[in-house]
């Protein structure tokens, strides 16, 4: 069953909720010229109707809390419910960002300690906790690298990005004013070092690398790559959205990376929220520290304070000090897991991915030799002869009660099916998922039409995205209102 829009359920003339009265003498004497003419057409619904509306919408969502969510590159691990409670503590949630430092010592200490913990995990010297998401962290890191080069009088204009990289990498580079130069992957799915060598020059500001890369493969030549990059005076940047294989196993800093961003909403178990909020802290090595966004959090004996006086800083990348509520959750996760727990999580993640990969042998193509790290990319091209595509497999999985893996990414694998089980799934769940994939592959061979008609068990069937983009309807409009806002 689908649910009408809140606007469609609106009851004109319904009394608003009880609200406080002004209880002061002052009238509302706002001059007419500043006054709104037409009230916004917000829905008019009672509280019970609102709750029911959203409860029903909730029941139309798949979520990691309820189901296996093997979305590759997204690390949909279990989000501890304790951390939700802690982030809501008034001592965190009710702090105004402009309270005096003396009144927020606990918050500043948390930020300070979280920074230290993330440095320990990454091998970086300092971190900024400001960036709000992974892409924001990428861009922040590139701004830092850019500022570093500029401070040395160099205006380097290129950033190298492997063809397997996540889309945010080239987009962040472009947003930062760089020209993106793509580096090819070798047939086995790793950086083609020869190609890289050819593209490195004094124009290159940085190479953006993901390791394990988006195929789930560890870049074996990482030490050589680092040497090459540093050899031309460029910086090596680590897309740490994919750190889940490496905690306590190895540190980007030890591999030669100069800057790192992390997705706390992946590796550090903060919930994804259906698309955020997350947090994308950026760590850097010593020579990049002066360029970090300001303020930084510093310690002076027992006292913590914000240091705004950082003349070489790139400035601010957002208001205030970061997505504090998300940082609280990530810190609680680190405290609970500890060094031992984080390392075990990474080992378990690698094990789960390899196990699931093994279980899918024979069902899907596995274009790159294993072992993999925390995730792997299969290909559904073996179903192409039956007229079945990766998207059909994905929709079939939805009907069997699983979320679908990431499909059609990375771009270099045809009919890509990117699977990341995470360490918090049980073997029973992995087996059930593998069984489902095998079943769907058999269906693809025997009754391809069936698979192409999926999903059938969800509130709506397969939605026509092409038609939706051709004549986009991006908002509700009251019936009979002039025109619709199709661009």
């Amino acid at each position, binding site marked *: 069953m689908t649910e009408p829009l809140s606007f469609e359920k609106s009851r004109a003339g319904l009394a608003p*909720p009880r609200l*406080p009265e*002004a209880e002061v003498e002052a009238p509302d004497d706002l001059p007419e010229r500043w006054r709104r003419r037409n009230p916004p057409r917000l829905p008019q619904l009672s509280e019970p109707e609102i709750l029911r509306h959203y409860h029903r919408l909730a029941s139309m969502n798949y979520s990691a809390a309820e189901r296996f969510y093997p979305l590759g590159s997204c690390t949909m691990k279990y989000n501890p419910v304790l951390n939700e409670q802690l982030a809501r503590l008034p001592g965190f949630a009710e702090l105004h960002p402009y309270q005096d430092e003396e009144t927020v010592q606990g918050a500043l200490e948390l930020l300070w300690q979280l920074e230290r913990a993330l440095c320990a995990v990454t091998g970086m010297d300092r971190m900024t906790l400001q960036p709000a998401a992974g892409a924001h962290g990428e861009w922040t890191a590139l701004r830092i690298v850019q500022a570093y080069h500029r401070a040395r009088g160099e205006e380097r204009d290129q950033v190298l990005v492997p063809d397997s990289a996540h889309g945010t990498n080239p987009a962040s580079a472009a947003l930062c004013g760089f020209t993106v130069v793509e580096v090819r992957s070798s047939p086995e799915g790793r950086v083609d070092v020869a190609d890289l060598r050819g593209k490195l020059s004094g124009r290159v500001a940085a190479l953006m690398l993901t390791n394990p890369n988006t195929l789930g493969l560890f870049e074996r030549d990482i030490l050589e790559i680092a040497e090459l990059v540093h050899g031309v005076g460029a910086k090596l940047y680590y897309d740490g959205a994919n750190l889940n294989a490496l905690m306590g196993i190895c540190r980007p800093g030890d591999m030669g990376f100069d800057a790192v961003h992390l997705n706390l909403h992946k590796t550090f178990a903060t919930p994804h929220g259906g698309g955020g*909020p997350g947090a994308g802290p950026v760590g850097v090595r010593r020579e990049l520290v002066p360029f970090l966004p300001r303020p930084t959090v510093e310690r002076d004996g027992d006292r913590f304070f914000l240091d705004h006086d950082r003349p070489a800083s790139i400035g*601010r990348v957002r208001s205030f000090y970061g997505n504090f509520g998300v940082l609280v959750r990530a810190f609680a996760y680190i405290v609970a897991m500890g060094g031992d727990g984080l390392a075990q999580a990474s080992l378990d993640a690698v094990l789960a991915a390899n196990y699931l990969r093994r279980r899918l042998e024979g069902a899907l193509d596995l274009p790159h030799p294993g*072992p993999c790290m925390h995730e792997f990319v299969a290909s559904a091209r073996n179903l192409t002869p039956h007229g079945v595509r990766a998207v059909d497999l994905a929709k079939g999985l939805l009907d069997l009660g699983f979320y679908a893996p990431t499909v059609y990414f990375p771009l270099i694998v045809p009919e890509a099916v990117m699977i990341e089980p995470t360490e918090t799934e049980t073997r029973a769940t992995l087996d059930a998922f593998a069984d489902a994939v095998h079943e769907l592959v058999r269906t693809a061979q025997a009754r391809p039409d069936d698979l192409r008609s999926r999903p059938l068990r969800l509130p709506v069937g397969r939605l026509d995205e092409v038609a939706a983009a051709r004549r986009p309807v*991006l908002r509700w409009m009251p019936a009979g209102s002039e025109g619709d806002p199709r661009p």
Partner: protein
Amino acid sequence: MLRALGVGSVEDLLVDLPPAVRLDRLDLPPGSSELETAACLRRLAARNRVYEDRLCFRGGGVYRRFIPAAVQAVISRPEFATAYTPYQAEASQGTLQAIFEFQTLIAELTALDVANASLYDGATALAEAAMMAVVHTGRSQVVVEGYLHPEYEEVLRCYAAGRGFVIRAGLEAVGEDTAAVVVQQPNFLGLLEDVEEVAGLAHRWGALAVVCVDPISLGLLAPPGECGADIAVGEGQQLGLPPSFGGPHLGFVACRRELVRRLPGRLVGQAFDAQGRRGFVLTLTAREQHIRRERATSNICTNHSLCALAASVYLTYLGPEGLRRVAEVSFRRAHALAERLWALPGVEAAFPARPFFNEFPVRMFHVEQRLRRLGEAGILGGLPVARWYPDRPELRDVVLFCCTEVNDPAALDLLVEVMGRA
């Protein structure tokens, strides 16, 4: 599982790691039980001072407002909180429809045609709007008029320095290189700007008018769409989100329909299945990084979806009349407070001629001492603005007070009483 893989330990799977980089031991304390974890975090929380809502008169971009319990009840549902960005539309209709409703709510609030699915915060939303204008006009300068929130300006400059455009100050700077004129309404000092005039000037020079708004004020104030703005952005924290030491909050952006393909980030649109049932999908993805890579309109991937959901619940709870009342109560209480503060000896209006909404600048003697005294009385007093304006002596002793529906008359009385003590 190891047995199924035929290996003795996970180490055997880490064959691709150069031994030189293999870490011995992660240098962090050992893990702790849930009880101890909670105790550790509670200890930190206890070392912060929590002011009662009603005694909090400090704003500067983050405000205490009444948050209906419905907001928490909805956003804490794990179906919303633990879903990913809704890539598989059919299994994500809850998130998608909620975003579609959010887009509509913001479009209605701003009186513009379309809004996106959310951005990180008000400051980055403003920077994104500036970049939209730079790309759209092909020009390289952005003019900031009036008192823009200093942190927003700093963020704007940081984006400009990377992307390669220039920020200039004041309407005098508008010219044929101007991509956009940016104005905040109410501005950082709480004062009302003449947005219509700014927009008119921008348009005369072929530039876009970008307005940064306070969403609650739009219950009372003329919205950007009624003032000729092309793009509106803002900070949505007031729409149901706690201050949370500055984040996560909620950036939003709305624009005229001509600009929709320049919008950054996610957009949700209506779609149909083969049976004609309506649903919702991520759409116009050809703007986005995962399709367009370095030619995308922005690098936004994860945005602030759950915060947008909070805002949707909040606005739906209030409805049009409720929003108007919240705005009106804030306006009237702030004006009542202003009158009383200005009447105190040693305290005066900083810009007596300028109208304001619910935040206003006060010039006073003994700023520090007064704020300290307020603190002792449990009050978080106004925000001194001098630190952002070291070269502006006329702003040295200016403190910004705000007032919302949570500051009840007794709280106002207490504030005035303590401020009035010799």
